[in-house]
């Protein structure tokens, strides 16, 4: 279950710890894409399963692992599209996207829908 971060908070709500990120103190990128069926943002886990939750994403610490994952994802036509590497930084409580765009995207559809009741 994805715990939605509060993007407004100066101190974002902590995400569940990611064991992978704990093992890798300074991840520079993760792989993300859009799901073909509904367009939902998804993130690649270390076991190469796609998750809707950013906190599940597996960090790709070096150029070789990043390019390898990207090439693999490009072959998944029908499941996901437009895969790309996304810059993140390690926080004590997990990974955090560097750009505002990716922070909002990571919050998922609930981000806007929770605000306007009729969209739920």
């Amino acid at each position: 279950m994805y715990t939605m971060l509060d993007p407004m908070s100066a101190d974002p709500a902590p995400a569940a710890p990611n064991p992978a990120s704990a093992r890798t103190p300074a991840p520079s990128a993760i792989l993300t894409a859009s799901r073909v069926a509904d367009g939902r943002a998804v993130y690649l886990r270390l076991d190469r399963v796609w998750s809707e939750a950013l906190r599940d994403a597996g960090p790709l610490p070096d150029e070789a692992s990043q390019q390898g994952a990207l090439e693999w994802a490009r072959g998944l036509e029908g499941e996901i599209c437009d895969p790309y590497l996304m810059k993140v930084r390690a926080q004590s409580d997990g990974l955090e996207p560097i750009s505002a765009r990716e922070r909002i995207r990571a919050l998922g559809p609930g981000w806007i829908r929770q605000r306007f009741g009729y969209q739920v």
Partner: protein
Amino acid sequence: MFRYEPRDEQLLRERASQFRDQIQRRLSGELTEAAFKPLRLQNGLYMQLHAYMLRLALPYGQLRSEQLRALASVSRRYDRGYAHITTRQNVQLNWIRLEEVPDLLEELAAVHLHAIQTSGNCVRSVTTDALAGVAPDELEDPRPYCELLRQWSTLHPEFAFLPRKFKIAVIGASEDRAAIAAHDIGLRLREREDGEIGFEVWVGGGQGRNPVLAKRLREWLPKAELLSYTEAILRVYNLHGRRDNKHKARIKVLVGALGLERFKARVEQEWERVRAGGLSLREEDLEAMRRHFAPPAYASPPIDSRELRAARLSKDRGFARWADANALPHRMPGYRAVVVALKSPARPPGDLTADQLDAIADLADEYSFGEARTTHRQNLVLPDVESWRLPELFARLEALELASPSHARITDIISCPGLDYCNLASARSIALAEAIQTRFAEPERVEALGELHLNISGCVNACGHHHVGTLGILGIDKQGTEGYQLMLGGSIDPEPRLGKVLGRALDLEGLVDAIDRVMAHYLQVRRSPKERFIDVYLRVGPEPFKEVVYADHPPPRDRDRQLPAPIGRGAPTAGG
């Protein structure tokens, strides 16, 4: 209104069927995203930040009540129970599942709605004045010409792959309520000295990162040559427009590169060839099209508006304020065109729920000959309402939370979807719109500020028309955080003008504060309530406003480590 013939309905059903096959092949992986993307775009389907978005065409913004009900139905069944009106009078659905798109399109085809040419590098849905046919300042109803352009441009094989998208707007009134100066081609019906009516042709307008106001290409064009001349312009653009750089591919760049005179010479030369090809319209064709837009059966003799006047004089200040702002003059005595405001802190500008769509369909049937229109400023219009019925219509709209007296006020915000929805955006627009709506929630204050156009774009693509807002706001990405630039002095009518950036970008709260200060200063320095904000700005220039915004305003907070301000935290939510 124009109604499709059986062959048009068949085309829409076939189109949905073709798209069903393409989607199945996409879902199976047979079609790659690269191969599928141009196909989905030709059917108005975008991939946005969180989901697919489907843009539906509402040519020149016209809606019959049955179409409103169909939109309500599909938004309930296939989306999340609401729809969004765009600045080009179309409708967007924001939470679409790919496999359900063909069913949705088949359902809409039954009421002559579709998504053809709402995306891609083609001639997009034609727009016009939301008061077409009813405005007292109108020379002639532009809708028959919009429909001719729609028929001519729909699936036109030569113009299916233009260098870039192409937008046409047509008006027939003295006031430009369709922003023709911001279009690739703008057409204005005007009368020649000998009394004959034709088109003034404007070309090369556009916003985006390099905004350009359209230039007058021809002072007068015979109506019969509407299609032949438009085809000549499109052909010159198609042949000579740049295809090597997406950001330099719009016709405004070609007009700028050639210069207006050389561009015109090429168009006129091409036009001579096109005219010989039989595209000139015969008077009987024009007359036949005009009959589709014949006025409804207005009450005759017109019922006068004694009850409206009585209500205005009464203590019902809420009604009076709404009627002053939203019940617009009509060419028929005893009638008004009513703006149904889709603006409040409880909704993104332009949103309305399925229940509201159904209710407006009922109101259209009861009060306005079964017709409604979408507007450039992301509202709806009931075009033919008898004045004496305004009080009861106001009460009905109030119950629907659609009676904000906001037309042409600071709260009548144009806003792109911004970073809450859009894949291209740099900053959120809706959150800012909501914060401004909340700050300016007091109706007396809004009324005192008078006529204003506040337009917000979440990035340089300028879908929110910020360049031509009296107050224009551009969202930017400042090294991973959202920032907002305030622009002042933009205008569409009576004289198109691009606004100028006032100063450095601010954060969301800072921008709302800045608008507050600008408005307070305006109220202080205006010579009378009749002197509008734009008048004051043109009189005193930007400096006094710059001073009140920046003099003692702290620099933007370091938000590098935090995400942006709340989407209206604490404000009420809409029901449902």
